[in-house]
C-alpha cells in the first residue's frame, strides 16, 4: 500500500497498524480533528510512512459481527494532508481499503464496511469509492469492496 506525495508524484510505502497508548498521548485534536482518546474502546488504526513514526491518518471502527459489517466511526487524514494543499494523497483511500480487508478477512462474501458522511461529502465518497447508499448510510460490499482492496494493493 502506498501514498503519493502530491508535489513530486513520488510514492511512499506505508504501514497501517494499531494505535497504542503512547500514540494516543501524542495525537492532538488540532492535527487529527477529533479526540481519539474517546475511541479507545474501539479499534483505532494509524497510517504512517514505512519506517517513520509520524501519524498521517487515523480510523476508528467497530466490528458488528452479528451483521457481518464493520462500521467506520471516525476517519481523518492529518491536518496538513487534507484539502487542496495536502502533502500526501491517498491516505483516506488506504485506510478505507485496510478496513475493507479486515471485513473480507472476517466475513468473505458478506463483507461490508459502512460510514455516514455529511450530505455534501457523501457524493464524493459515492463517486470516488463507489459506495452504495442506504438512507444516511454509505456502504461497500462485494464486488465493490474487493475492487477497493485491489486498487490500493501493491501487487502487480
Amino acid at each position: 500500500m502506498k501514498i503519493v506525495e502530491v508535489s513530486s508524484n513520488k510514492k511512499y510505502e506505508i504501514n497501517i497498524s494499531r494505535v497504542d497508548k503512547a500514540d494516543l498521548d501524542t495525537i492532538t485534536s488540532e492535527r487529527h480533528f477529533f479526540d481519539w482518546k474517546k475511541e479507545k474502546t474501539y479499534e483505532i488504526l494509524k497510517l504512517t510512512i514505512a519506517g517513520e513514526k509520524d501519524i498521517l491518518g487515523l480510523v476508528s471502527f467497530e466490528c458488528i459481527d452479528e451483521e457481518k459489517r464493520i462500521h467506520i466511526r471516525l476517519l481523518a487524514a492529518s491536518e496538513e494532508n487534507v484539502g487542496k494543499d495536502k502533502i500526501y494523497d491517498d491516505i483516506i483511500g488506504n485506510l478505507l481499503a485496510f478496513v475493507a480487508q479486515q471485513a473480507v478477512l472476517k466475513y468473505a462474501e458478506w463483507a461490508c464496511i459502512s460510514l455516514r458522511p455529511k450530505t455534501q461529502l457523501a457524493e464524493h465518497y459515492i463517486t470516488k469509492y463507489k459506495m452504495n447508499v442506504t438512507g444516511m448510510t454509505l456502504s461497500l460490499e462485494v464486488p465493490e469492496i474487493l475492487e477497493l482492496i485491489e486498487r490500493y494493493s501493491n501487487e502487480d
Partner: protein
Amino acid sequence: MNEMANEVVDSRYSSSREQRDEAQQLMEKRKLRMSKLSRAEVFKAKLMQLKLQMEEFLRAPVYDNKPHFTTFLETYIDTLYDKRSEFAKDIAVTPVSLSQVLNNHREPKEEFMLKLMVHSERAFKLIGSFHKKIWYQVYFQEKINETMASQEQWRPEVEKKIKFESFA
C-alpha cells in the same frame, strides 16, 4: 471544518435506536444485493479471504502445531470444487494421495506444490493479485512454527550431540 475538501468523517451514531434503525434498513438492502451476486463474485470474495488469511499467517506467525497449510488447502479446494476428487483430477494426482496430504499423513511432494502453484495462479486471476510463492511460504513457515513449538521434545537429545561450546 470544510468536510467536503477534507474527506474527514464522523460516523458515530447519536443513539442506539438510530443505529438499530439504520442497521435494519442496510441489512435489507444488503440481502437484496447479495441475492444478485454471481457465483464468480462469491468465489472471488472467498479467494480474497483465503489470500488475506494466508498473508496474515505469514505476517504474524504463531508457534503452534496446528496444520495451517492443509487447513488453507482444504479451504482452497472446498471453495472451488464440490468434490475434492475433482481437484485431484485437475492437478493429476490420485484422490488417495490428495487425501493423505490433507490428513497430514503424507508431506506434499515438490511436484504437488508446483501443480498447486500453477492451479492457484489461474484461480486467483479472478482477484488480480496472487503471490506465486505463497503456498511455499505457508508450508515452510508452518515447519518453522512446528520446530519452534516442539523444542522441549527435540532439544535435549540434540544438545547432547553438539560438541561445540559457546564462546561466552
